[in-house]
């Protein structure tokens, strides 16, 4: 069982021309560092580092040995790559963490009783919204049936779908065996020797993880006593998997649907239990640019959405063949005002298109620059997209409509996450800020200042959120993990005054001053401040940048460097926080033991370790 995987086929000393001295490591390693520097002390208790799993970085494929270029000014463009990110899944049907939030008494909260999104929708259209009661939005995550399905009204799509899923208990598998594949895309697949046994031993409540590192993708069992040994490792020839996602609808003891997006633009649908795969957008036939993020469409067995680096979002059907993509209905770009162009979502192929024989199912051009991340809302109707140009958009994908367009304070936005109840969205970006946005109020609620570098990952901690307060975690290039507690109550205070008492006077004066100077001065100056007062306009889609003087600043409740390398990802699990970094370290931080909790609010109920099943 502890037999190591077969040695690499190439000499361990390295490939020809490899930079000397570079150790090629082929096995993952695990360590258990202890000490105060491996603890996170927060109000509710102390998080302790459980272990540090270091994924082995595979050496370059022999045929792809990079030309080592000693010129630091070389203008060669290296293909995009990505630090380690994980996709997690537990096989057992888990109670979604968000149920903790789904209380019926939300009516009593301080918030408007009409859920924000439902509200928009009722304004504009009727068909989909009917199913939404007052709490429809809130309960939606629990009840997939009530949520409209993407593309449901399109007969052309439904035909295919129904065929595909005749027997819901029997999942379709991809066509090709990845182990026996002779595709030049896949270099090698290394299943664990005792894979079957390990799969049997797997705790159903335990976590499987898929993690990318360089050109490898590893399937890990995070609850196994030998978690450092991968269940399967796939090495691709040269493409790097930049993103991946597991379909939560189809997961089961014998089936997992994973999609991965690659630096080459290719997408692979992989089923690890049967070691089958199929490849989509082959050689970039539909979109030739790298895939920066990929997610299964909520409630869909077959459809997933991929964001490409040219700013397009493409929905694919895992079962369909590729066909060269020709934009279908493109409204001419000319003649539109800037405003129109900005407020419009360019639909190059609508989900309503009758031509659904092949991929793509739909194709939207969101922005002109690279999309860094997107995420679906808990109500499964919207998604939020953040891009390198600093824009942050909320899109109703059922209606294929851009609802809101916000901008970062400056610089690109790198990550985005919805609150479990769908009311708030947090983003992180190159302005070193975590920004909290309220859908309901359509405003920037607060900027969280505390990172020393770009924010690369942001998540809500559903186990520490309730209808009044939210726990947010963020990681960044500064190697730090920051935790933020954000409470609804504070929104009702005048922001500038309550949060920055020292500045409040000055800032009001300031605003007046500024307006004055701006109107008079002929100098070139950002006029960002001029329009910011209109943020509450109902029809407004494009929202101006909020000046600093008027925005609440939220300080972190915890700041801690948790790695030596820039972090790329984090997740909250019921019993732990997991972080990962550019160099492949996956660190698991155990939540405070219940007894030691100093939190008397009862929010730590999640600490029941019943189903943790963790070694």
């Amino acid at each position: 069982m502890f037999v190591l995987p077969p040695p690499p086929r190439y000499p361990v000393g390295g490939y020809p021309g490899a930079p000397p001295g570079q150790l090629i490591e082929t096995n993952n390693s695990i360590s258990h560092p202890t000490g105060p520097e491996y603890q996170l002390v927060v109000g509710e208790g102390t998080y302790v580092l459980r272990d540090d799993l270091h994924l082995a970085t595979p050496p370059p494929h022999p045929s792809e040995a990079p030309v080592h270029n000693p010129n630091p000014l070389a203008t060669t463009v290296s293909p995009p790559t990505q630090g380690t990110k994980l996709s997690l899944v537990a096989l057992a049907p888990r109670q979604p963490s968000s149920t903790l939030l789904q209380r019926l008494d939300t009516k009593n909260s301080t918030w408007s009783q009409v859920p924000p999104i439902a509200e928009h929708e009722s304004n504009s259209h009727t068909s989909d919204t009917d199913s939404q009661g007052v709490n429809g939005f809130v309960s939606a995550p629990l009840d997939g049936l009530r949520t409209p399905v993407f593309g449901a009204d399109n007969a052309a799509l439904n035909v295919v779908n129904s065929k595909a899923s005749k027997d819901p208990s029997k999942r379709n598998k991809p066509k090709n065996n990845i182990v026996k594949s002779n595709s030049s895309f896949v270099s090698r697949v290394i299943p664990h020797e005792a894979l079957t046994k390990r799969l049997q031993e797997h705790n159903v409540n335990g976590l499987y993880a898929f993690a990318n590192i360089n050109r490898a993708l590893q399937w890990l069992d995070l609850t196994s006593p030998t978690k450092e040994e991968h269940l399967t490792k796939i090495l691709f020839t040269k493409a790097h998997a930049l993103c991946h996602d597991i379909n939560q609808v189809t997961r089961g003891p014998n089936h997992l649907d994973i999609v991965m997006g690659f630096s080459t633009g290719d997408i692979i649908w992989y089923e690890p239990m049967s070691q089958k795969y199929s490849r989509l957008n082959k050689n970039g036939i539909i979109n030739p640019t790298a895939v920066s993020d990929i997610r299964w469409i909520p409630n869909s067995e077959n459809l997933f959405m991929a964001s490409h680096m040219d700013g397009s979002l493409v929905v694919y059907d895992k079962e369909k063949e590729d066909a060269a993509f020709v934009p279908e209905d493109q409204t001419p770009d000319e003649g539109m005002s800037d405003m129109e162009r900005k407020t419009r979502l360019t639909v190059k192929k609508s989900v309503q298109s009758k031509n659904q024989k092949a991929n793509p199912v739909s194709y939207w051009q969101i922005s002109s620059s690279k999309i860094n991340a997107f995420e679906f809302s808990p109500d499964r109707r919207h998604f939020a997209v953040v891009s390198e140009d600093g824009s942050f958009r909320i899109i109703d994908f059922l209606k294929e409509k851009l609802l809101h367009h916000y901008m970062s304070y400056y610089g690109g936005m790198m990550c985005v996450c919805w609150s479990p109840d769908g009311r708030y969205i947090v983003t992180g970006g190159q302005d070193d800020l975590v920004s909290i946005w309220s859908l309901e109020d359509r405003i920037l609620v607060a900027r969280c200042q505390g990172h020393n570098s770009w924010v690369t990952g942001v998540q809500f901690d559903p186990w520490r959120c309730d209808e009044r307060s939210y726990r947010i975690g963020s990681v960044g290039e500064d190697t730090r993990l920051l935790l933020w507690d954000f409470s609804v109550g504070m929104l009702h205070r005048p922001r500038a005054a309550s949060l920055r008492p020292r500045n409040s006077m000055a800032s009001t004066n300031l605003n007046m001053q500024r307006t004055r100077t701006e109107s008079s001065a002929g100098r070139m100056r950002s006029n960002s401040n001029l329009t910011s007062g209109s943020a509450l306009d109902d029809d407004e889609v494009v929202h101006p940048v909020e000046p600093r003087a008027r925005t609440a600043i939220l300080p972190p409740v915890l700041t801690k460097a948790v790695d030596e390398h820039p972090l790329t990802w984090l997740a909250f699990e019921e019993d732990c926080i997991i972080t990962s970094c550019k160099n492949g370290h996956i660190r698991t931080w155990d939540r405070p033991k219940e007894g030691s909790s100093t939190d008397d609010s009862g929010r730590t109920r999640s600490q029941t370790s019943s189903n943790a099943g963790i070694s």
Partner: protein
Amino acid sequence: MSSFFGRLKSGAAPASPATGHPVAKKDPNAPEPTPLEKLLANAGPLRGDGSDKFFGFENFGSTCYCNSVVQCLYYSVPFREQVINFPARSAPETLERPQSLPRINTNLQNGPQSALSPTGRNSLSSPTVRTPGKPATTPGAPGQPPKPEDNKDSPEYKKKQALAAGPVLTMDYENSKSYGMSESLFTSLKDIFEAVIANRSRMGVVSPHKFLEILRRDNEMFRTPMHQDAHEFLNLLLNEVVENVETFSKSRITEVGGTEQNGVVAPATNNNTNTGWVHELFEGTLTSETRCLTCENTSQRDEAFLDLSVDLEQHSSVTSCLRKFSEEEMLCERNKFHCDNCGGLQEAEKRMKIKRLPKILALHLKRFKYTEDLQRLQKLFHRVVYPYYLRLFNTTDDAEDPDRLYELYAVVVHIGGGPYHGHYVSIIKTQDRGWLLFDDEMVEPVDKAYVRNFFGGENALACAYVLFYQETTEEAMMKEQEADAREAAAKQASELNPEAVAVGATTPKTNGAMNGVGHAHHLSTAQTPTIEEEDQFASLNHAATAPALNPNEHAHPVEHVSTNIPVLGAKKSNAGLGLFGKKNKAEEKERKAAEKELEAQAKQKRKEMEQQRRNNYKRQEEELQAALAASKETAAEENKKRGTEDTSAAPGTPRDANGVGSLSKASGLSRFRHSSMSLKGKPKFWGSKDKGDGNGDEAAGNGEDPKGHGLGRKKSVFKF
């Protein structure tokens, strides 16, 4: 003169105003147009403001610190404009029709030139002028053969090629007199800018002899051929410019005092006489708030800064460095604060905030840190990320426009393991040609994403050292992003090479036609910067001698140029396309055709331009006459007042500057400059840096000790 010029040009047959430039354009040596040539292949007519000029700078042995910084300044649009316009000469015309600008310059050049012996003084329009002179000095004629066996992708090779292709603007003359100023770093900088703008070629190489000569003459620390600190140089240069400009206008005021001419003309011309322009562009104000812990009294002091030096931390961002810069600092122990309120030294809290935001924010990342143990400077390779856009968090509450948006437009990169050696290059966003890499003589288009290769980090020899951010607006930002997008889209449409497109969204701007060319990414396998070939120049200050000394590469091309002028002259705006067309590569045929068309068009254009120029010239001459008359008057007055300075070229008088330059009696420039400029002498600017650093001061430091040369970024390091 102009007629001579014109004739020459027309004589050059196909040639156009571009006369000289077309010349060599690699045709002999380069089998293929360089990426830059491709980028510029279908450029329109030359612009008068210099925004479409892409000249490398010759390296005379470790002068890359200078080259990289001067390039950044050249592409700092308002700075360039001010430099060109400063002594307010010909202002009205300039403003109205920038097209005429080059014209003016030509005159200018010709002016001094005629006065000078042909040998040394090839002026801006060197190609033409040089023709007669240079060939003699460059007999080698290896123009064609010298195909170095080097790897063609190596920077060395490319640099040689650039020199060979020319035109090489040998800046060994100075026009300070025509500017009505005394010779200074400013005037020679202006000479360079003028020359580049006036030249008919879009590409070429500047040999900044005079500039370096003056720099070295006046600043001991730059005299050694050693590696110098680019930031120190930047600071020194800005300070010098400030000083030169101020001295000039002071003298002007005192001299001209009541003269009508000055009174009237000067203000009329777009505050060119406003000597504060360097301040306006680069200067911001820092407020240090010091709160005495004993009496709680807060005192404020404002200090000006021309750039900000920030300390670095591993894995941080520029944003965070700036925030750290403004973090509270305890003044205690030996560093106590003298409180006026309670009298005596007290413990205090001090923080520096930005009260007035500069238009151009020059950020110096303090990568060279003095380590006590080693007793020397060490380079910090910390990974410090910088965004394309920036706002400042550390502003005071009463700062005007505290949310001002800045965009990154230039990066000076230091390559090398330590402060005492290495190489500097700059990566600059040009007005409409996207990002370019300026590596001494070589200029190459790069991808926008390339800018992010210099964050630093474990294995990164090349790290950003000075970042230039300029004020911008959100609208401008959006527009640019959209433009980027369109290009990317166009590109994607035309070529479906997946990899190239992968970066599509962030590709440099190429002109529709030649997609992808923009980033023909050449693997340069060369090692870091080496510049041995030029070492011979280290001690040379005079261009005149340069050719002689310069053995092969440099000279030959020139020769080649001259011989070819008549023949090849045509291609000016097509930048060498024609030449490469000759190669008869099959794939190039189409291009050839297109090119011919272009050429025809270009010819037409050129003719028109020429006509225009002639007209301009006529007008100029008339004006000149008038101006001369006027200036003579003033000169007379001035002479009465003070014989020393040549102020005859009143800043306000338009064209005359040139004419005057050559004609005026200008007493040999009064040299009121400090012979060596100690930055200490300018507490005004230096003070500002201080929280950050103190380091500025050092800049001045030790010329004599090449090693120590004031890189010290520690407060304690003053090597005076």
